């Protein structure tokens, strides 16, 4: 699991690569929190294009990122969702709560 980010005009883009499971999720949540606190974005793009695997631990990561952005009065959009991760997010009906592109 690797996380990279870039920021431009208070838009934060977070890119994830590797396998997102429970083992990876806790550190990842902390990293995303810190990254948002430092950059205070008004919009965050969470780019899942590099994920080779994601289980329901990813749902918790997305929901937490969404809540953090709401606390900053900003928005979260999840982009480039690979097929396997998208099946997990769809089964959870996450599209009702979060912008999945």
């Amino acid at each position, binding site marked *: 699991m690797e996380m990279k980010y870039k920021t431009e005009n208070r838009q934060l883009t977070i890119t994830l690569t590797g396998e997102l499971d429970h*083992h990876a999720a806790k550190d990842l*949540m902390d990293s995303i929190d810190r990254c948002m606190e430092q950059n205070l974005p008004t919009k965050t793009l969470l780019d899942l294009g590099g994920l080779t695997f994601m289980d*329901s631990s990813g749902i918790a990561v997305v929901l937490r990122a969404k809540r953090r952005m709401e606390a900053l009065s900003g928005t979260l959009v999840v982009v480039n969702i690979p097929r396997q991760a998208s099946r*997990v997010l769809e089964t*959870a009906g996450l599209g009702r709560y979060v912008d999945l592109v």
Partner: protein
Amino acid sequence: MKTKCTNYITLEFLSHSANEGFARGAVACFAAQLDPTLEELGDIKTAVSEAVTNAIVHAYPDRLGKIVIKARILEENVLELSVRDWGRGIADVEKARQPLFSTGGEERSGMGFTIMESFMDRLTVRSQEGKGTRVTMRRRIQPRRAVQ
């Protein structure tokens, strides 16, 4: 119903979260014998990951314990998986299987059983408080013509 088993494996490991990747990877290496599509393999890995994570997080919340996975290939291209722990157990299995139900913290979504159920053809959960839990899943792999 009696079902003939043509091949089986057993995996035993400790409830280190680092072993989640091992468990789903090892099962995928075994399931490869059934010539699954990438999507079928992804479904199986996801279901294994959910069941193993539950054993690590919920069965053994404050200690390391043993987890055993058995995988069998049954007739008609069916893969049967059981994930077993000797941990805390589940008081009310029916309630635990509801979508969004979770005794975990903010890190859990309560969608584990729901995902296992919709990614596999069949899910059975047997559990006894203080004794442990056994989750059994089946998935039929669509037979494909060999390309060559």
